[in-house]
């Protein structure tokens, strides 16, 4: 009797993190085995104890939200998943060492683009994260990454671009042609950690000029 290889039951056990929302995901081969259940544990690197994640014991889905449990920015973590088939075969696989500040990706910013006759104003709304400070308030990306800044581009008829950038939230592209469509693109950059978000894109048309000339 050749022992069936259980390790195939579980693959790609890893954290997927964006804006500090840390989700543990995994896959199994074949895609789904009826009755297969999964249980998740996690630990802080350097600690002995593995802790069972409540709400992710004997589950059938292939993801588990560990945002709260892995929320300390200065700590490193591991998670592991145990898969068990109805027939009792099981395997356990572990993630790589994880730290949310190193690994999280940055989502596009939330921006309001407001046209006038000859300008477009862009207001960037700070992004709240699930990370809490010592006094319990939720931190923004800016509070976590001291060197975070915004890069704004305005594309004019596909060739010509205007650029603005900085740490503030209010920007204005001025001297524009009335009644013309523009494409705005706003991204977040964090140089120290070599992070850059995908851009938020807004398509805006300046207002018609109704003044008598």
């Amino acid at each position: 009797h050749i022992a069936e290889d259980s390790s195939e039951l579980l693959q790609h056990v890893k954290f997927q993190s964006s804006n500090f929302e840390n989700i543990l995901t995994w896959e199994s081969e074949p895609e789904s085995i009826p009755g297969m259940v999964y249980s998740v544990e996690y630990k802080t690197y350097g600690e002995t104890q593995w802790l069972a994640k409540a709400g992710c014991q004997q589950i059938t889905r292939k993801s588990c939200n560990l945002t709260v449990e892995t929320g300390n920015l200065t700590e490193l973590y591991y998670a592991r998943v145990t898969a068990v088939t109805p027939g009792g075969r099981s395997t356990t696989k572990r993630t790589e060492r994880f730290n949310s500040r190193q690994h999280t990706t940055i989502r596009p910013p939330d921006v309001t683009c407001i046209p006038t006759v000859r300008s477009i104003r862009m207001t960037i709304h700070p992004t709240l994260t699930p990370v809490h400070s010592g006094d319990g308030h939720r931190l923004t990306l800016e509070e976590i990454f001291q060197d975070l800044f915004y890069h704004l581009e305005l594309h004019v008829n596909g060739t010509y671009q205007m650029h603005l950038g900085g740490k503030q939230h209010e920007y204005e592209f001025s001297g524009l042609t009335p009644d013309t469509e523009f494409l705005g693109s706003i991204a977040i950059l964090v140089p120290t950690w070599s992070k850059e978000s995908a851009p938020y894109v807004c398509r805006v048309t300046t207002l018609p000029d109704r003044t008598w000339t």
Partner: protein
Amino acid sequence: EFQFGPCQVEGVALPRLWEAFRTMKDTVQAQDNITSIRLLQREVLQNVSDAESCYLIHDLLKFYLNTVFKNYHRKIVELKMLPSFSTLANNFLFITSKLQPSKNETLSASDSAHRRFLLFKRAFKQLEIEVALTKAFGEVDILLTWMGKFYRL
């Protein structure tokens, strides 16, 4: 530039060190299966005063250069990660050469920094040498994160 208390180091780009280490991190950390021991523990790096920081970074970087990098070099060659390793080592060498922990600073700062360093060194010595080298090298991200607190763009 870095500003470790009284010690200033210009000409080093922290993002570049991160980029170099990032290309090696997963490979090296995957070989460290002891998840219950951390060499750069909280007690080594937490709440380090400015006055201590120059002494501590000097001790740590010298240890990394003279013990960890020197003895882990063969493994790095095996793993074909020499370019990134050299970037890291050369920058650590440069930083160390610029650090001049002053002699007339209060004795307590250098003593306290040295006690922190000894915590790290003792934990290192308690492991079998190959295991210790892999773990120490895999913890360079913890070191870079701490160094980031003293970095000004």
